[in-house]
């Protein structure tokens, strides 16, 4: 199984240097993120975990290029991140599938924006990724005809199909029931191992973070800062009820609550 230490010398896919992000709120300026410096290595599964209000979703929007930093910079490889781009695709909180398109058309949406592919190649690729997430037989189904878990699988296929350099995941499992979620953890880990993607996942679920991440970055709120970074050296595929996983999750929880108590 993959060991995160083997990758420690890998070049950084995403680099954040002294990133600060402020919003104009009703009660004056709010600092969502303060002085964040972080490297995401090529081929790494990095999980950002923290309570609500710690700016983790803001971080993802910044990485996606949907928002802009006030200070500091974000680079993808050598290039500064200033706008959304196909090299960083996002899988969102609830299904952001388009209800007027069926499953395969949804997956094709991003592929059709890649000009260097023929239509046949696009279709082939869309089918490949729908199969990869186990929905090869649901090509023509509309989003409303699929269960919540299936919809998130289509969303996963949609963000994987254009082959982005980095996959950004914004709490993609939070709206799902526990059983479906656990199934998806398995799928994601399998795809991650198979496709060697760089993934940044944001979640408030500490167990989930430890289950999926090579590294877990704990954020603390008000303002959002990096509090502590944990390496997870457990073999994949990991299961939620693994005792080693539970003890590491407890360690993260303790770190978080000791900070919140301050």
């Amino acid at each position: 199984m993959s060991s995160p230490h083997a990758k420690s010398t890998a070049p950084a896919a995403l680099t954040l240097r002294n990133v600060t992000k402020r919003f104009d709120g009703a009660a004056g300026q709010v600092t969502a993120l303060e002085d964040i410096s972080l490297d995401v290595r090529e081929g790494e599964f990095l999980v950002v975990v923290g309570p609500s209000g710690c700016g983790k979703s803001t971080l993802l929007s910044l990485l996606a290029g949907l928002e802009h930093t006030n200070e500091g910079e974000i680079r993808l490889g050598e290039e500064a991140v200033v706008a959304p781009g196909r090299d960083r695709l996002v899988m969102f909180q609830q299904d952001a599938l388009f209800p007027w398109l069926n499953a395969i058309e949804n997956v094709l949406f991003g592929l059709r924006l890649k000009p260097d592919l023929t239509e046949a190649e696009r279709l082939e690729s869309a089918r490949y990724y729908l199969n990869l997430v186990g929905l090869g037989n649901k090509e023509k189904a509309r989003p409303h005809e699929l269960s919540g878990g299936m919809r998130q699988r289509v969303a996963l296929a949609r963000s994987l199909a254009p082959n982005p350099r980095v996959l950004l995941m914004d709490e993609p499992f939070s709206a799902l029931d526990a059983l479906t979620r656990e199934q998806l953890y398995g799928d994601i880990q399998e795809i991650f191992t198979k496709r060697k993607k760089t993934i940044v996942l944001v979640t408030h679920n500490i167990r989930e973070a430890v289950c999926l991440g090579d590294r877990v970055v704990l954020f603390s709120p008000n303002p959002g800062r990096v509090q502590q970074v944990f390496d997870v050296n457990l073999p994949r595929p990991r299961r939620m009820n693994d005792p080693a996983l539970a003890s590491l999750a407890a360690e993260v929880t303790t770190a978080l609550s000791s900070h919140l108590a301050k």
Partner: protein
Amino acid sequence: MASKLPRPVIPTVIAVLFLVGWEWFVRTGPDTRAVLVPAPSHILKWFWEALLSGELLSATWVTMRRLVIGFAIGAALGVPLGALCARVRWVRDTLGVLALGLQTLPSVCWVPLALLWFGIREEAVLFVVVMGTIWAVVIAVQESVLNVPPLYLRAAQTMGSNGWHLWSRVIFPAALPGVLSGMKQGWAFAWRSLMAAEIFVVIVTGFGLGSLLNAGRELLRMDQVMGVMAVVMLVGLLADLVFFSPIERWLRRSRGLER
């Protein structure tokens, strides 16, 4: 107990009783009563004669043509204007607000100006119909575009969609149900304003249903007046039944908003 009967039975019985009662009421009264209130048989007789003489069909054709052309112009102008209102704040604060005001104005109020500007001609009626349609469409398009879930836009943008692609592939499809109900409302306004315009003004370029109704008034032929009223209702119902409702139902079903 009544649940054993098929559902249409009771309404049919009541309708027949109502018509028979109405017929009896007119026939047993003095002759003047038939002038004031034509019996169902009189109305049917007028309907049959008008149908045979071709008068009814040609009037319906003239009215429908005006309605369809005026509606098409109103919708064709209203959609881009509504999109512009949604896209540009100062347009929304000017044209959007104006549209809200003008939508509440029954478009028959435009008749005096229309006659002055275009003369007693087809263009004047079309103008009134366009004014009836356009504002409802502008407002509906503006609102539905503004209400497109931001999540769709963010998802599309990260996949590299922007500009015209974003509008045509994401914003318009997402806004379509709202746009359609706006068009339906525009159609209803246009239909009412057209009738009013045709009744008030004799347009020399065509003899529509409204003119036919007005002619009935001048001849004191209430059978004709009520007959035209029935036709106007039928046309309105048919437009909804064969055009708007099926599209709306298909749209809602395909998105799982309704089964």
